[in-house]
């Protein structure tokens, strides 16, 4: 097998100022009380917020105008962001990536050189995020996590296998994040129209066990069971939606099956949160596991949530 020698694309950057200050006075954010079937809702604090986003982050220059871009970079045309959908040619595809990296280097890396140099020495993220591998739900995009903020695991259907299932990709990352990096928060984010959850819900009882997808999503079988038990009268799409949220809750429970996680949650140095991103309506729900009020020892486990929020 021949491996072609690497092409390095580090160039001397031109100093280029495009930081845009955004002063946006936001309308009141309306809240609809979220419903999460199967879990006891602890507190429904309705939050009315009037937020002011001022220079959100000078490195997040998302409103670049075409005239400010240096020549040679892909420009925002026809009201579409720089997506890869239009590049058919493979050669163009990688030229595009090169431009993107150079753009990142000029507008983010060099603009915040001190910060990046500090990060190069060590990372100290406060979050660990477990999200789906789906191309539409990158947590950096939808929640704006910047470099250094979130240690991220992405797998099919954002599942967390329990401690008893033995070593896997996800729990190796959990171990590192919790025991080495000592993150303070774990956030498991589910999303709408999840193919993995759909596969879980459509799974036959006796199915093709050679399929990796099947062997993986079966981690979420308890979520499927509880969905079927409460939502079997709903349409399949609605059941899938219910299961998407239910599987986040089951993942939170599975997190607590790890002794070093449970210990930290009990001591209050680690919080675990669930989230749900609906990309059809562009809404985000977030809730936190209320460890103290949860009853995790009994056979039928009940857990409580608190600090529920809904943003739309």
């Amino acid at each position, binding site marked *: *097998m*021949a*491996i072609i*020698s*690497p*092409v*390095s*694309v*580090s160039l001397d950057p031109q100093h280029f100022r495009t930081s845009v200050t955004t002063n946006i006075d936001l309308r009141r954010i309306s809240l609809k009380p979220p419903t999460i079937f199967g879990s006891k809702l602890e507190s429904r604090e*309705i939050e*009315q917020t009037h*937020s002011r986003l001022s220079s959100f982050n000078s490195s997040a220059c998302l409103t670049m105008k075409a005239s400010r871009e240096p020549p040679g970079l892909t420009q925002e045309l026809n009201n*579409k*962001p720089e*997506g*890869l*959908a239009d590049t058919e040619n*493979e050669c163009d*595809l*990688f030229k595009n*990536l090169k431009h*993107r990296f150079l753009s990142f280097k000029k507008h983010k890396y*060099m603009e915040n050189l001190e910060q*990046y140099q500090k990060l*190069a020495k060590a*990372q100290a993220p*406060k979050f660990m995020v477990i999200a789906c*591998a*789906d*191309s*539409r739900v*990158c947590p*950096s*995009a*939808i929640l*704006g996590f*910047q*470099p250094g903020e979130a240690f*991220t695991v*992405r*797998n*099919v259907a954002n599942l967390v296998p329990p401690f008893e299932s033995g*070593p*896997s990709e996800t729990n*190796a990352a959990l*171990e*590192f994040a919790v025991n080495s990096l000592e993150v*303070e928060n774990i*956030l498991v984010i589910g999303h709408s129209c999840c*193919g*993995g959850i759909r596969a879980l819900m459509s799974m036959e009882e006796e199915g093709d066990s050679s*399929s*990796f*997808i099947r*062997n*993986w999503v079966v981690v979420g079988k308890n979520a499927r069971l509880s969905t079927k038990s409460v939502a079997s009268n709903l349409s399949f799409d609605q059941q899938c939606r219910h299961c998407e949220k239910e599987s986040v809750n089951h993942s939170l429970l599975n997190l607590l099956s790890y002794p070093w996680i449970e210990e930290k949650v009990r001591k209050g140095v680690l919080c675990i949160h669930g*989230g749900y991103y609906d*990309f059809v309506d*562009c809404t985000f729900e977030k809730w936190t596991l209320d460890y103290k009020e949860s009853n995790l020892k009994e056979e039928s486990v009940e857990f409580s949530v608190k600090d529920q929020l809904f*943003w739309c």
Partner: protein
Amino acid sequence: MARHYNGSVTDVAVQGRLKKFLREKEELDDKIKKLTIEMEEQQSPEYDPVVERIKNGFIHFKINKFDKYPELYEQLAQNQHPKFLVFACSDSRVCPSHVLNFQPGDAFMVRNIANMVPSFNQLKHSGSGAAIEYAVSVLGVKNILVIGHSRCGGIERLMTHPEDKTPPFDFIDEWLKIGLPAKAKILAQGDVHENKYEACAREAVNLSLVNVQTYPYVQKAIAENKLALRGGYYDFVNGSFELWDLKTCISPPIII
């Protein structure tokens, strides 16, 4: 005059109703004010910087991306057709959405410790297998890109353990065993590498590209010329990115 008489009666009636409506509106306005005050007085949650951080991030995304490109996001809500399957490290500093500016819809992305791809094994690593199966067989991605990076904690652990005699982790060391061939190769090459960890990080990318070809659907797609494999390396110390191809070539036979 009859008309005039009717007109003034109508006027009076209208005036009366108008007054009634205005009064009702005032009462409703008062009620709304009271409710608003009540809700504001309700104990609001304490300011939580964690929550504020996430909320501001989401709002920023919604205003600057989702609401700005409705056609794109409507289409994405229906289905995804990413061109890439990306394997990247979970390290908080190397998200490909930043480094390579991947937009929603561009890349089906797996992130794990040291961005590794285990070889095909139906008894374990179903998480990675599921992602490859889904991306290649269901979504039909055209490119697989494995991206390594500088100062990777996973690679460092791979290179130093168990020789450093530190106690083993429950799960991390088991996962990192996937990278053992890369470690062996770098150690066998002796002192030719100035920095063995960085060399191992690049070698581990190549190892992952080899491993990914052990999956039957990947082999099939490559044979049909529908899939390309590439390796990448993001060096955040020097601010550089390397990109390379992996191609199989069969040399002409020697006739014995």
